[in-house]
């Protein structure tokens, strides 16, 4: 027997959708096997995981809290990847965003929320956009591939933050340097809560998702971005200002990722500490890819992954399984999605041996 891969002509939407669903399912099965390998009780762990994610109203609200930054970093990845700009700087832009928001909020400690809130949010967007703006300039001016500039900037910002928080100007006074954190922000800078643990950041994230959807589908700038992704050479021949489109796309993406850092700082942590922000950027990349690089899909997957990471805390407490299981699960799901979407472009054909 001879098995062959043959390219499908005009892959169906049904197949595409099914491939995402199957890939996520396969990710769950693989994770169960991983748990089995680490000799954990799979049923107890999964039960605690799902109860922690969806078991009560409070659990569901916590899921949305965890989803909030992922929606924003996911959107940041959607914007650049749709334009086929391979920026993986979301991780560093989250840090820069939180730093921008912290700088504004701590400088305006006496001002009321109506003043501090919007300004700190703007600081977050500016922080993220500065990082991505550097990468865009390096690409436009010096032909530096954005993959490398954004990766290197991710490492650079982490060292910069580490300096600021341990020995540098933002180190919490009176504590040992070992905490690597700033003091708490004044309460006037905290985002208001909507219900229980759920803070107003979710509204910002959902509004951003709608805005990105409208931008990509309904505006000429969005069209330019998608056209850049589809055929850069054609765009250049049409006389379009490609460097400008790259810059605008990158600035928008950086602002979204920075927003994630700002919202997490002002809504949840209220102090700056690198550990709190770790993985939000890379998580957003996975969310965007598994969400099919569409804003709606990104929101849905961010809520799924937010639920997993919020449930993982319960799982760790009840079954002892480390909550980093979620990172492993996300990585596995991503790989299955890559295989699944690629395979959806093909059909398997069987024929008897020649």
């Amino acid at each position, binding site marked *: 027997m001879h098995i062959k891969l043959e390219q499908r002509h005009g892959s169906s939407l049904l197949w595409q959708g099914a491939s995402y669903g199957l890939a996520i399912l396969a990710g769950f099965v693989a994770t169960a096997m991983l748990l089995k390998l680490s000799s954990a009780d799979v049923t107890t762990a999964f039960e605690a995981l799902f109860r922690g994610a969806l078991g009560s109203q409070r659990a569901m609200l916590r899921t949305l809290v965890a989803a909030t930054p992922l929606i924003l970093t996911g959107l940041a990845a959607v914007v650049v990847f749709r334009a086929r700009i391979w920026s993986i700087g979301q991780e560093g832009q989250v840090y820069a965003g939180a730093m921008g928001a912290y700088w504004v909020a701590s400088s305006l400690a006496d001002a009321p929320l109506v003043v501090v809130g919007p300004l700190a949010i703007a600081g977050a967007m500016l922080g993220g956009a500065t990082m991505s703006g550097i990468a865009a300039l390096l690409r436009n001016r*010096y*032909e530096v591939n954005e993959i490398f500039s954004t990766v290197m*900037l991710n490492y*650079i910002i982490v060292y*910069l933050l580490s300096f600021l928080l341990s020995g540098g100007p933002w180190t919490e006074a009176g504590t040992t340097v070992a905490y690597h954190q700033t003091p708490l922000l004044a309460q006037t800078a905290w985002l208001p809560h909507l219900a229980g643990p759920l803070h107003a950041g979710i509204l910002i994230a959902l509004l951003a998702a709608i805005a990105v959807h409208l931008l990509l589908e309904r505006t000429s700038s969005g069209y330019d971005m998608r056209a850049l992704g589809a055929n850069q050479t054609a765009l250049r021949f049409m006389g379009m200002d490609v460097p400008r489109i790259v810059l605008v796309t990158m600035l928008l993406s950086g602002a979204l990722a920075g927003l994630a850092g700002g919202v997490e700082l002002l809504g949840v942590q209220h102090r700056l500490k690198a550990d709190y922000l770790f993985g939000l950027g890379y998580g957003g990349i996975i969310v965007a890819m598994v969400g099919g690089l569409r804003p709606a899909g990104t929101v849905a997957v961010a809520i799924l992954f937010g639920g997993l990471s919020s449930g993982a805390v319960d799982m760790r407490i009840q079954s002892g399984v*480390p909550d*980093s*299981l979620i990172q492993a699960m996300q990585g*596995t799901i991503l790989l299955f999605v890559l295989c699944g979407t690629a395979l959806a472009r093909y059909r398997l054909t069987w024929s008897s041996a020649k």
Partner: protein
Amino acid sequence: MSGLFQEAIFVSLLAATIRIATPLLLSAMGELVTQRAGIWNVGVEGTMLTGAFIAYIAYAVSGDHLTAFALAISAAMVLGAITAFLSVTLRVDHFITGLGINLLASGLTLFWFRSFVKGKAQPTFDSIGTVPFPYLSDIPVIGSVLFDQRLLTYAAFALVPVVWAFLYRTRTGLELRALGENPAALDTMGLNVVARQYAATIFGSALTGLGGAFLMLGFSDRFVPELSAGRGWLVVVALIAGNWHPLRVTSAVLAFSFLESVATHSQAIGAAVPYQLLLALPYVISIAIIVMARGKSRQPAALGESYSRS
């Protein structure tokens, strides 16, 4: 400060440069072969991390260096095979493939590490000892810098002329280079493009895994998540900066290693700059290096493009 003290720092600085260069060089020589075959593997970071982690687990369990190295290489080869399957067979964009490999490796190693050390003290161990060359290691300065290193360090530097000879002086090497320039030509000659690209990718990943294992066992006393800390990315940048030529890539690797060595010696040297900022230096310089290398680039013409007959 006495002259003797300064000389000791100088020797230590250079010896550390050679040591730090070892994992980068092993990986760079492997990935050079991969990229010359047209496969743009950006999953180097994740592959190196996996090599380091598997070496850690294997050594903690078995206590045997050879087992640890063998398992690290095998695990990295599996990642190489997955990379090849995605980018050659399924023709997924090479960047997306590498991104997937990096994120997978990052998640899996983090989880497995946390599961492994859960509820017990983190095992630590002595790094592999140096093997001084007889007579040569007695030469002042040069002896301590070059000839009092670990076996794999000698192997890594010996690999450079070997890879050069393979690429430029053998028929297989010529075919491999042609693969990165014009795969269709090889296909027309009836040579198997897919098999060669698989082999080149798995070979590169094996050496990257070995580099990761050395990173762990050669100079770390314990594993920390994200141990590779961007070294895989520096390897990819070194290939660009070195214009895909073994000797120039080696110079780029040595430059990065020297910078990292300076950062780790900053206190001994008495630098007034905070050490975190010095540690960020290789990443800053790597961007500068790409800026300087632009325009002179002779990257393989078909690098990163999945070959398709139609």
